[in-house]
């Protein structure tokens, strides 16, 4: 069994073939480094990041938040985006800021919801944010309708460009827990939506354990050290043999069940089979930039519930599970998954929608994130935005610092950072400014795929100012011409 795995690997290496699933070693690239020796272009990668925050608090917009006063290149940096010119060098030439974005809102309770829009009540706009479809009007007596009716941008892209990569797409989340027990998540924890076997939208839950993400991504790697390679091959063989038995037994049980139980166990079995397919995939060939990352070890300890702020409880592990360290591991994994061409598509949620995470250790302020957006000084809130931006800068810099072909990995990426909210008039309360608003939104864009512009502040045109227009642009950048739900059209200024 192990011999078979090794011989297949040897064969692939010996043949020098350009099997998809192998990393992009220089030897595989054509003379000019911009195309595969076999004639195909270097693959494009698509990554959408997300943070569960807006650009201010109910006290007002955070001054000098991530939107700079100047339009065009060479924009100035407020405190929230100080990391764009910090330990990772000057990223202003890489990261574009798109401001003037909005998700249109229903203006009266029970009234119509505009195309691609959301309801008056906040905290239920997963659908327009990620699929570009309008939220459904809540049924009488209900304040929110969380239904998701479409496919998210990353899944549209994955269907088009994943090819035979080992993972059609990856979903990661740094915030470890909801931190608010007794409350359902209602998709606050999900960015990616595909279609199930019946053609209905299906949430693709992110992996929130760095340990699990690492094991899933890297257990197929065959180390150079022959002894380690043999052990790794043995482990792969074991996993396959075990899953084979589990699969067969579960299939027998599915046949004995009916109704909802049958459907649920079948779903479980389908996901076992996904695991088996991942194990059968050609292992990546370590070399060049593609390296087995150092094992991150056990996950940081999980923090408990966290239901408020103040009161001197911040010495507790409440509401925080070292998301800073977790976020770093996930960023490293996204990066290496792209380098090794294990996947070409990812979504990465740093903090959940309506995040209840304790932000003391990230920002120096004694709050949980959601409460902070409602009650804190807007200037302090910059520190929460800044943590997200530092994480984003870390990831973009890693992509920039990785050579690929004639240029860098970042040259072949289309990366976006989407936030939950902006700031503006409240249709809920009539307040002049609230963070419960999808007016005044901004997004970040990085990468050079498909001729994306590098490092400019762009104001979205009025006819393409939905956040979905940025997503459509990112899709276009990786060669996918498609609407996103109700949203169509790219933002021309995002392209050179």
């Amino acid at each position, binding site marked *: 069994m192990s011999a078979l795995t090794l011989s297949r690997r040897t064969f692939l290496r010996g043949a020098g073939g350009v099997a998809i699933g192998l990393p992009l070693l220089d030897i595989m690239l054509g003379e000019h480094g911009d195309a595969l020796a076999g004639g195909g272009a270097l693959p494009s990668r698509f990554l959408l990041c997300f943070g569960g925050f807006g650009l201010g608090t109910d006290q007002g917009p955070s001054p000098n938040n991530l939107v700079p006063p100047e339009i065009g290149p060479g924009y100035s940096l407020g405190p929230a985006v100080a990391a764009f010119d910090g330990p990772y060098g000057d990223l202003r030439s890489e990261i574009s800021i798109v401001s003037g974005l909005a998700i249109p809102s229903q203006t009266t*309770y*029970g009234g119509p919801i505009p195309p691609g829009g959301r309801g*008056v009540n*906040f*905290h239920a706009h997963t659908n327009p944010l990620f699929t570009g479809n309008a939220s459904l009007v*809540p049924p009488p*007596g*209900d*304040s929110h*309708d969380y*239904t998701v009716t479409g496919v998210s941008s990353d899944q549209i892209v994955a269907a088009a460009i994943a090819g035979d990569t080992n993972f059609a797409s990856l979903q990661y989340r740094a915030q470890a827990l*909801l931190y608010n027990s007794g*409350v*359902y*998540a209602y998709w606050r924890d999900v960015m990616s939506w595909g279609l199930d076997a019946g053609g209905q939208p299906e*949430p693709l*839950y992110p*992996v*929130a354990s760095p*340990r*699990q993400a690492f094991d*899933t991504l890297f257990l197929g790697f065959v180390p150079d050290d022959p002894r380690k390679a043999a052990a790794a091959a043995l482990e792969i063989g*074991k*996993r396959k043999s*075990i899953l084979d*038995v*589990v699969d067969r*037994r*579960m299939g027998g*049980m599915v046949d*004995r069940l009916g*109704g*909802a*139980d049958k*459907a*649920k*166990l079948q*779903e*479980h079995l389908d*996901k*076992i089979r*996904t*695991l088996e397919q991942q194990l059968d995939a050609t292992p990546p060939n370590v070399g060049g930039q593609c390296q087995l990352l150092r094992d991150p070890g*056990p996950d940081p300890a*999980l923090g*408990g*519930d*966290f*239901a*408020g*702020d103040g*009161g001197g*409880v911040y010495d*507790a592990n*409440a*509401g925080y599970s070292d998301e800073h360290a977790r976020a770093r591991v996930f960023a490293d994994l996204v990066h290496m998954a792209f380098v090794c061409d294990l996947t070409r598509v990812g979504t990465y949620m740093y903090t959940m929608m309506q995040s209840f995470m304790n932000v003391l250790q990230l920002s120096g302020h004694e709050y*949980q994130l959601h*409460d902070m957006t*409602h009650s804190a000084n807007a200037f302090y809130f910059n520190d929460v935005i800044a943590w997200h931006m530092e994480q984003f800068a870390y990831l973009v810099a890693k992509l920039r610092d990785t050579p690929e072909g004639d240029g860098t990995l970042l040259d072949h990426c289309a990366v976006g950072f989407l936030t939950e909210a902006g700031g503006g008039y409240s249709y*809920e309360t009539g307040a002049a400014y609230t963070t419960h608003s999808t007016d005044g939104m901004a997004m970040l864009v990085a990468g050079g795929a498909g001729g994306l512009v590098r490092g400019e502040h762009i104001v979205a045109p009025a006819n393409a100012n939905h956040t979905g227009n940025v997503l459509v642009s990112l899709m276009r950048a990786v060669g996918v011409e498609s609407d996103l739900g109700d949203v169509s059209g790219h933002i021309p200024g995002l392209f050179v």
Partner: protein
Amino acid sequence: MCYSLAVFDAVLPPRRWNSMKKWVWAGLLLATTACKDDVPNPEGGGSTGGEEGSGDDAPGSSDAGDTTGGPEADLDGVGPSGMRRLTRYEFDNVVRDLLGDDSRPSQALLPEEERAPFDNEYSRQEVTQPLVSGLEILARTVAQDFVADATRRAEVVGCTPAGPSDATCMRGFVTDFGRLALRRPLATAEVDELVDLGLAYAQSQDDFFAGVEVIVRALLQDGEFIYRIEIGTEVADAPGVFALSGYEVATRLSFLMWGSTPDDALLTAAEAGELDTTAGVRAMAQQMLADPRARTHVDRFHALWLGYTELPHSPALTHAMRTETAALVERVVFEDDASWLELFTFPETYLDATLAEHYGLPAPAGGAGWVGYGDSGRMGLMSHGSFLSVAASAADTSPTKRGKFIRDQVMCMPIPPPPPDVMADNPPEGEAGDCKIDRYAVHAQGACAGCHAQMDLVGFGLENYDRAGRFREHDDDRPDCPISGEGEVVGLGEFNGPAALAQLLVDNEVVQSCVTEQVFRYAMGRPMDEVDEPYVEAVAQGFVDSGHRFQALLVEMAGRDAFRYRREQEQP
């Protein structure tokens, strides 16, 4: 999946199965119905399932047939049951009991459960790729740790292998461990398949325990390990009703009593037919309460029900508060086996010096111990910091959230969600300089008043106790805003403070009715439905007859025919 449906479930008023105090329920229902016009009719519409089947009057047939081994089973009240995945808590208990693994390994590797308030509702258990991948990694971690521990593995494997390919020992291990893991004996072909898997690796690795490892890994990912699947035998003359096998009853029983898997003795009892009658199940349930695992499990039921599994305080304070409440539950339910109502009226509490100082109560002699409440105005669990820490808002108590929490959980009288035109994230702002009670006055106006009276008036009756359970005379940092502590449970009466609230809810038989429904929910992994009424009504009566002993409540829950049968689920 759909939000509106979920909320619809949550706002259904309780069924009027408590015949003893129908006037109380009627009064409260009237009040709640007045809270909002479109609350579903308490007697009918809106239930998401179970409306067909036995319904109001039994369809005549109470003949369970021969397969049950029990005479004249009462099939009225048999409810549907779906496949139930082990929760993280249960998974960790099971690997502790099967493999001696105390590390609670699933917490980090499996997705967290949503709680409402219990973590085991099967309709909420989604199958996700992170779950299935996490289970695979978890199985590997647990199995490898296990075989690396010579003491544990010797105990569990049960034979000393004569060599790596000792087929007899491998077969013995698979037969015994497989029975415990899958909660039933394995068929010969099943044993053969697992033995073959194990021996292949034992031989190729020249290590018997390499074979044990792969067998454990396979079983920990098995569909019948991960899920509690009930099949049973269809009852003659009662289409759609199935008598559970003895093993299936053993499994229901052990997860109800211990939150864990049946042990060898319980499976042996099942095999011997001892669980084929309600009397047999009842006797076994009583016996199982003597196991220390029952104490932990009863403590956890209360913590989930009342929302204090995790508290937003420093680890030391959290620990002290959890210890305080656990000590009271342990004393009332197990040490004294007294009326469970004493949980709400107990005149003493278990404190350490830190917590005594926190509350402003006398410190116990020695490091920790029982302290009398005296005339402090406190009494029972509702005066504990654990309970009073739940449902707070940003920076302060929320009388609205506290009141809603008490209505929803303690009284089983759920308050409907806010109407569509309310932004409920923030407490009312009021005018600058307003005292808190004045800020909340906006809730008493117009259309808001009906529902908010149900919640806010309860919350304000506890307002002298801050969100860590400390007594206070006035609003935080506002000596000019004295707190009166006057509150009311609309329909029941006025009160002031947690002791008086507890007395009010006990005297009106509200908590004792509610807890029966909550135990049902925890036991069955789903909310109560109309079809369950005869069962729950009988359990409630048994609870009353026992003098409200909580141990008796659990035994009553297990010792009914409805516990040994299942009704086919509606087709999706």
